[in-house]
């Protein structure tokens, strides 16, 4: 006889994460400790070559001002003084402009762009129709017999984001599971409920121009997940999210 069909339907879902680009800002205590350590290091440190050279040249200048000792020092006369070098470096530094930490997308709170919240993980949420409800979920697709759960999750990713995403799936084992039973109206002998297996992947490239997104999508941080996901689902998802 055929193998007993389990009453649960299986889904594979993919949690696609964009890793943070910059480090998080330091806490108040961390900043104080860092400043203190820097001061201690500065006081304990010795002069570097450049500073020694600067001090020697300052002394030479002083001696020149007071009395003329030009002949002795004319032999080792430096063309470029250390002070000039320092000024040049200062000017170069002032010309350098670092990229802003808070981007435009942050200010406008545009949740569909990848550029916001550069210091935390962003996860992909998609609006999917389950039963007769439209819900915000991690992209999921039903498992077909004969394929591994990991390939189901990859297929889910490909369906929603197109084929050309560079994402690195972490491992063959699922990270979490969420199971729920269907409401009594739909429940049959063979179809008690569904189990969703979550997989994780890191987004390698931030260039999503080639991806054709078919449904509504959002990139949210862990704290904002609560705005979109249902509580039970959220509990299970939070279990495998770091940070």
């Amino acid at each position, binding site marked *: 006889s055929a193998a007993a069909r389990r009453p649960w339907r299986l889904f594979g879902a993919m949690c696609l994460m964009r890793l943070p680009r*910059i480090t998080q800002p330091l806490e108040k205590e961390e900043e104080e400790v860092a400043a203190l350590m820097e001061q201690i290091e500065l006081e304990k440190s010795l002069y570097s070559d450049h500073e020694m050279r600067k001090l020697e040249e300052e002394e030479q200048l002083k001696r020149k001002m007071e009395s003329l000792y030009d002949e002795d020092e004319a032999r080792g006369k430096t063309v470029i003084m250390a002070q000039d070098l320092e000024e040049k470096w200062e000017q170069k530094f002032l010309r350098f402009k670092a990229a802003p930490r808070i981007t435009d997308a942050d200010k406008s709170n545009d949740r569909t762009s990848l550029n916001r919240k550069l210091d935390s993980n962003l996860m992909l949420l998609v609006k999917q129709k389950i039963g007769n409800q439209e819900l915000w979920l991690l992209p999921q697709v039903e498992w077909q017999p004969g394929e591994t759960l990991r390939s189901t999750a990859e297929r889910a990713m490909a369906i929603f984001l197109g084929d050309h995403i560079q994402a690195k799936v972490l491992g063959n084992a699922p990270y979490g599971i969420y199971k729920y039973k269907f409401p009594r109206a739909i429940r049959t002998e063979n179809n008690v409920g569904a189990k969703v297996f979550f997989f994780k992947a890191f987004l390698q490239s931030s260039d999503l121009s080639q991806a054709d997104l078919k449904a509504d999508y959002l990139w949210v941080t862990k704290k904002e997940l609560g705005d979109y996901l249902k509580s039970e689902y959220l509990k299970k998802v939070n279990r495998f999210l770091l940070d």
Partner: protein
Amino acid sequence: GALLGCHRSYRSRPTHGIGRFKYLLPKEVPKKRKEKVQMKEISAGTEYQYGDLNIQMTSYDLCLVEHFAQYVHRLCNRLSIRVNDSYAMPTKTNEVLFLEERGSKMQLDAVLTTHQRVIQIRGLSSTFAPILLEIIQSNQPEGVHLLMKQHTEADFKSRLKARPELEELLAEMS
């Protein structure tokens, strides 16, 4: 003057060899000088466990790399992952020369040193590996490049120095 008391024991006296004790101590194996550094076996790893893995961290900033390497080492200790070795590769110095061509050609030099630390791990289970990778990646400091790869013979050989005279002599002999 008077003779000082002399405590020499003669061979005929019964007190001959009274202070000997070295024969009572356990035998010391004579230390070999400059043992040839043998390569330890590199385990290949079974289906569910990785063999020898190298976590290589490179950066221009020495303090950052050192502290990060210490952090990773301690993390592995806490997670009871066996750490075979943790060593440093020799630092590479790069001289950066700017050639400005606006009238007078000036060359501004900058000297950059690249430091690399390696931590070798054995027996990482395949279910735990992605979690470890995620933890390390999320705690990576700015400016530090992380690379995880399997340990090969070439990696081991890169730590040893080539000896040209020995090679010449060997070539002459054969």
